[in-house]
């Protein structure tokens, strides 16, 4: 339909990474077909939006006016929804998640499911709301107003001052004060300076940056232009991983649209200020998320970190002063300019201002994307927003900060989420991964899993990270295989502490975190593995044994499913498992109807 006509209805279909899997495209086709059937196509605008965050409930469709959220439905429900909602003006209440309305700070009402109630969306304020491919949509939510304000009313130093005042800290993980970074770069002599957006999101399971760009690419662009103005740069680069084709496509379109509107390029908004953006694709190296490695990669070299100082703010890309911030940091900038530093700093804690986006994953009911004010506790995120642990299981640990974060047990659940508190709890903010683990997780195995990732992704430059994590991984592997030795836990701690303090870059400095934090918080589990050769979670297969007890009725079901013929016994006689032949696959236990098979 024609965008210039105000539509009667707006149907927003979430097209985030998770909803794509749940066939958002086919959903759109089906909606279109149904609208056609009722002759409503001309009166309705359909938007494929970025991630709304309700990934566990997908697919998600919002019908406006009324902000009715339909979720978790099937494509065959579409005719019913369209007919009931748009033609008969009722709701298909069994598929609606919204029960009553609640005011949200930003622009639109999301709805009150607990999922949104405790959230506050600043960086993701437009994600799931607007059509990310429409610059008009962005303009309609005060898009580029911050840029206009900066260019017409503010001197570059005023912008830097505002950033310093607001208390924003880098969302990439380390939490360096953004305003300080801006002012350090602004102080450097020009004329050539660069602005970089780090969109090389590499943490397994994390999709904050991806969703931010896919859902609202213009806000990143606007933030970067403001940054360029503040520090005196005329060139910006978005370094984004090539595995994010949709984000790249939307960003490319947004850049082209912004250029066409005179919001990028020469003489922006007739202000005399010129700034342009370029996209560079990363080839999928985790370490390239580290700023100095990222800069090397843009320069066409192998992405390996270099010692700092000099910091990029002094000597960055091609040896020029460079301002590098991550996607989420950039996305906060327009809001800070529009609503002011004092408003922004009213959100959050004393030292950590604003909000933080997390990718909630693991053993939690509502997996997905959440943005909460700093200071929200882990318990609120996991239980109130995340809906708690599924299947009635017990919470065991939560890991924040991606593969190099620490694992915190139950006693840390009331830890407020901010840079310092998480650090004190033995973890890190990181870029925003949050993985919840229930009692079925083996903490030794979890530590091994994360270390395997960081060891593989180590660039190999510095000794502690390259060699040290390898030895730690060997020790962990040996423990999970039942070959652990008494002094292994001490060795892990000794190596881990050294690697943390001696490595060249953040990757190595944080790689031992999962190991050190699990030893600190779950030491007895390590000791059981080493001393008793037992894995209480039943994950480490080498440490498991299956036996058949007196409940056995001799039905033979287990014998038939055993892939290695390890079970013997006559009909109606108690059967026996030969441990030498058993490969500990657990099939027999699953099959047995009499609970006669026990794992120990």
């Amino acid at each position, binding site marked *: 339909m024609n965008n210039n006509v105000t539509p009667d209805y707006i149907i927003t279909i979430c097209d985030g990474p998770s909803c794509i899997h749940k066939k958002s495209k086919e959903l759109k086709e089906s909606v279109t077909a149904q609208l056609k059937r009722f002759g409503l196509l001309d009166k309705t605008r359909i938007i494929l939006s970025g991630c709304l965050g309700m990934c566990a409930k997908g697919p998600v469709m919002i019908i406006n006016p009324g902000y009715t959220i339909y979720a978790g439905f099937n494509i065959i429900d579409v005719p019913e929804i369209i007919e009931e909602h748009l033609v008969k003006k009722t709701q298909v209440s069994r598929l609606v998640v919204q029960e009553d309305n609640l005011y949200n700070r930003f622009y639109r009402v999301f709805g009150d499911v607990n999922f949104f109630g405790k959230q506050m969306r600043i960086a993701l304020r437009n994600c799931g709301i607007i059509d990310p491919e429409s610059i008009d949509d962005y303009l309609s939510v005060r898009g580029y107003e911050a840029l206009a304000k900066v260019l017409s009313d503010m001197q570059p130093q005023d912008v830097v001052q505002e950033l310093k005042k607001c208390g924003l800290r880098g969302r990439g993980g380390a939490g360096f004060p953004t305003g300080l970074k801006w002012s350090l770069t602004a102080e450097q002599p020009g004329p050539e300076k660069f602005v970089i957006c780090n969109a090389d999101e590499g943490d397994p399971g994390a999709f904050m940056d991806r969703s931010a760009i896919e859902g609202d690419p213009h806000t990143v662009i606007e933030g970067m232009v403001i940054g360029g103005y503040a520090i005196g740069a005329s060139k910006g680069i978005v370094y984004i991983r090539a595995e994010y084709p949709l984000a790249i496509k939307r960003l490319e379109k947004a850049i082209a649209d912004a250029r066409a509107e005179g919001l990028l390029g020469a003489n922006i908004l007739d202000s005399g200020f010129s700034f342009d953006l370029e996209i560079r694709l990363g080839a999928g*190296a985790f*370490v390239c998320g580290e700023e100095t490695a990222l800069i090397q990669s843009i320069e066409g070299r*192998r992405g*390996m970190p*270099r*010692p700092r*100082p000099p910091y990029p703010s002094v000597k960055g890309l091609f040896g020029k002063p460079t301002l590098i911030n991550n996607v989420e940091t950039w996305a906060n900038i327009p809001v800070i300019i529009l609503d002011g530093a004092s408003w922004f700093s009213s959100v959050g804690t004393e030292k950590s201002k604003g909000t933080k986006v997390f990718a909630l994953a693991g053993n939690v009911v509502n997996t997905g994307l959440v943005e909460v004010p700093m200071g929200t506790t882990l318990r609120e995120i996991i239980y109130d927003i995340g809906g708690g642990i599924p299947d009635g299981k017990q919470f065991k640990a939560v890991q924040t900060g991606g593969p190099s974060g620490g694992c915190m047990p139950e006693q840390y659940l009331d830890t407020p989420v901010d840079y310092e508190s998480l650090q004190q709890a033995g973890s890190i903010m990181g870029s925003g991964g949050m993985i919840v683990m229930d009692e079925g997780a083996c903490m030794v195995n979890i530590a091994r899993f994360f270390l395997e990732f960081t*060891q*593989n*992704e*180590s*660039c*190999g*430059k*510095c*000794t*502690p990270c*390259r*060699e*040290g*994590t*390898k*030895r730690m991984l*060997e020790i962990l592997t040996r423990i999970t295989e039942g070959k652990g030795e008494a002094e292994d836990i001490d*060795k892990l701690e*000794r*190596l881990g502490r*050294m690697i*943390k*303090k*001696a*490595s*060249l870059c953040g990757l190595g*400095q944080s790689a031992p975190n999962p190991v050190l934090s699990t030893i600190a918080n779950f030491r007895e589990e390590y000791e059981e593995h080493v001393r008793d050769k037992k894995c209480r979670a039943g994950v480490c297969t080498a440490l498991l044994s299956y036996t058949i007890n007196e409940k056995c009725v001799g039905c033979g079901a287990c014998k038939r499913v055993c892939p290695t013929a390890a079970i013997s016994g006559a009909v109606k006689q108690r059967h026996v498992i030969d441990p030498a032949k058993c490969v500990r696959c657990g099939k027999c236990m699953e099959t047995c109807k009499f609970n006669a098979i026990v794992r120990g």
Partner: protein
Amino acid sequence: MKEKVIVYFNNKPFEVEAEQTIMQAADKIGFHIPRLCYHPSLSIEGACRVCIVEVEGMRNYVASCAFPVSEGMRIHTNTKEIRQARRDIVELILDNHPQDCHTCERDGICELQRLAYAMGLRQRHFEGERKRYEKDLSSAAVIRDPEKCILCGRCVRLCSEVQKANTLGFAHRGFKANVMPAYDMGLNESVCTGCGQCVNVCPTAAFLEKNYTQELFERLNDPEVIKVAQVAPSVRAAIGEAFGLEPGRAMAGETVAALKRLGFDYVFDTQFSADLTIMEEASELLERLQSGGKLPMITSCSSAWMKCLEQFHPDLIPNVSTCKSPMSMMGALTKTYWADKIKTDPKKILAVAVMCCTAKKYEAARPELRVNGMPATDLVITTREAAWMFKSAGIDFLNIKPERFDEPLGLSSGAGAIFGATGGVMEAAIRTAYELCTGETLLEIELESLRGFKGIKEGKVMMDGKEIRVAVAHGLGNANELMDVVRADPERYHFIEIMGCPGGCIGGGGQPYAGSNSIPLDEECLRKRAEALYGIDRANTIRRSHENPHVQRIYKELLGRPLSKKSHELLHTHYSAKEPRGIIGNETKE
């Protein structure tokens, strides 16, 4: 006056210059912080983490090689914690290193070994899987043994920053990280020039020269052949270091005597053929000047440089002198002129070159340098290999009675000696060219502007009323830079000397390893070696190549005059463009 700051090392205050690293400050006040990947001629890598120190207020240790001092900084270099961390780091390096010190070529002269000892590493905790790789034996000059590589990156930085050949780079991640040429191809296919500087800077035995000592020992026992050696100028200036002497002692006589003890029948002096090179090269220059030939003329003595030129600057091949290197001239004369003199079938002559260079091994294998179907040089051994052979054969090098080179290919002028130092060929050539051109003897023969270790040196000489502008570059990086100047301004110079190694041949890839208290490629060491050669020059009564009576005799008896047909047959060669893989553009051409 540089700004000063007060810093505390281990709680003691010291006034040090600002704008320097913790390591530099520590060195100056007498704290030698252990180190491995650091090298003063190369960029800061900060990779090995051996040089970590504690700085109060910093959450983590800092690499002292990279971190600048600041006012009031409190640095701790030897706390219990930092000592254990450093020790553990070195242990981690050892854990991924072959445990074959006793059979390793660098046993006793290995930086890693020394470091492990100094760290007090007496017990092992973390042993596990070790990397396994094949050796790369493909190059005629240099062997790469990735198993021994500890990834300090010195070779990578040297090859890209000093030599600018960019042969080596890091590949793969994590524990699988490795140093290799592009696509892990053999060094022989790569852009490697064979200069061997990677061997010099490698702290372990990950790079070594292609070793011919066993083969030479065998062939020295063959009663059927006549064993002839030649010794390059720079060998005598450095070989003493392999026996624990300070750099700078010229030991020509000892080398001749030791080679004779080893089993050589005759020992000739490469300085003689250096004189001959000057005769030919100076004449070629004059001819080009007079007949409007291609200028500037560029020297061709350095084997690594010739490979570099053929692959990176093929457009400048017409500028290069057609003269063979002194080694190949000597080989050619040994198997023709001298074989005739002693009435021997040249096939029965074993011609061995003792060189300061690894690339000469590659040069000896070049097919265009063969004479009458035979290799002009049968085997090339480096200064290091020669020293090892002397030790292995039980020759008391330090106390041996010096002997003289054999005639007639053993007499040389002082000009032949200074060939070994950067600028020396140019200086020697000017001494002769001046006289050939003007008929007058050049009196001011020590051309200071061409000496020393500045990367690119320039000079001017007036010859017959014409100003001859010359330039000298040493190290392939400087050479590349100079070639860009030539392309931009072809009129700027008439004559250019290039040596592939920093300092010239005295800094060659085959020279003795740095001793336990020094560093590879130390400029002070190079300066002393050069001084030894300048001393030989000053002590010589003959200081101009054309005054060498044996050179005069060989022209009378065999060659006629410089650039004669016979000269061209024996002493000149040709070069052709090479397209090794790994140069951008070559892949797409295929």
